[in-house]
């Protein structure tokens, strides 16, 4: 199951899965996991997809450059 870390709330990681947010214990996630990371949750292991995260962020920043006035 793939998701994106929306934010951390104390000991909880809020993960967006198919456009909805779902709470997970933060300790499921590797220490280096950050807000915005694309992750794969499989059983009790979570993998951060670094390349996919960066690719996504680049695409979104391109859209932001187009929309932000300054």
């Amino acid at each position, binding site marked *: 199951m793939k998701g994106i870390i929306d934010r951390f709330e104390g000991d909880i990681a809020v993960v*967006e899965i198919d456009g*909805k947010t779902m709470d997970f214990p933060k300790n499921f996630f590797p220490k280096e996991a950050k807000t915005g990371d*694309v992750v794969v949750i499989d059983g009790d292991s979570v993998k951060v997809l670094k390349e996919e995260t960066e690719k996504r962020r680049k695409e979104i920043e391109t859209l932001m450059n187009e929309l932000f*006035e300054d």
Partner: protein
Amino acid sequence: MKKFISAFLLPFVLLLSIAFPATSKAATPPLYVHYIDVGQGDSIYIKTPAGADILIDGGNNDKGDDVVAYIKKQHVDDIEVMIATHPDADHIGGLDTVLKSFKVEQVYAPRVSHTSQTYVDFLRAVKNKGLTIKTAQKGVSLGLKGVSAVFVGPVKSYSVDDTNDWSAVLKLSYGKRSFLFTGDAETKAEADMIASGQNLRADVLKVGHHGARTSTSEAFLNAVRPASAVISVGKGNTYGHPTAEVLNRLKAHKVSVFRTDQQGTIIIRTDGTNLYFNVKPATTNVSPTPAKPTPKPPVKTAPKLPVKKPAPIRLSAIVDNPHPKKNSTIHLYVNGPNGTYKAVFHYKSKNTTYTGTINKPLAVKIGRASAGYTVRIDIYASNGAKTSTSFTPR
């Protein structure tokens, strides 16, 4: 003695406000601020005395329709200013729905990215309306008639994963009264706002980050010196918001606290001199006498609304594969406050009950489950909470 006098005078003040309710209203048009009850999240609707409509945040993804319905009920036909304080889903989730439903003139947001679909949906909705985004940052004014509305934060850039500190913080003043809308700004951003030397003083503080302990620092309260504070927070949220630390800090500063989880939508009206609340403060043990030298406006209240009962503890559940193959293994995630649960799988032919531990994945071999038949899973936690999810084998 002081306490005695204010207790003694209060009935007369109330009587006066009942006897002459229209006097100030007729003289100066009011400003309205609605802290909409969107559960865990923020959404604030403001109507300025000149009639401009402002929306700060739009609650979570599933709250967009509620926000649209609420502001339609306030006879809003277009929104002059929309502010997305920062890209977290519980703040911007509903804004795409609002953008689709209303003509919006201006959109403000801090220049920080997020990779979430929620943020992409917001950006695309802005684009589809042919709009652009103005950067929300310190010193930017909304340029509205009759009020002063200026961003006091963010004062600088933060790390891209520190979305809370990027929060657009708006100070709105009308006459002698002012409001501070902080988004989720945390201690670091608060310290930077204080260090910037701006006047942060406000009568009403929207408590940062739903009352999380990482916001509303002692230093910030000393700078803002609010008489009242509003906490926008969901009933029975799993994050422990608002925290006892923040409630105690507010209490120590003799701040009257209003809470959307206990009182629903909080509405404040002001004529620029007095503040009128639709409900009484949520905490009754806060002293009504002003503790600081600054004169505070008299707080007058309408009849008290019934206080809602506390909600049961929230539990959420999901399976890692909503369309598994026959004989495969799926994982059920039931997350919430620690404990155990029973999960009843309603297969086509029979019900099977499994026992699991909250916050630990449960592996279930689904056997020869019928393809195309949606298996509902009802989850009953040992603490009494309930939830459900489902999967449909292919």
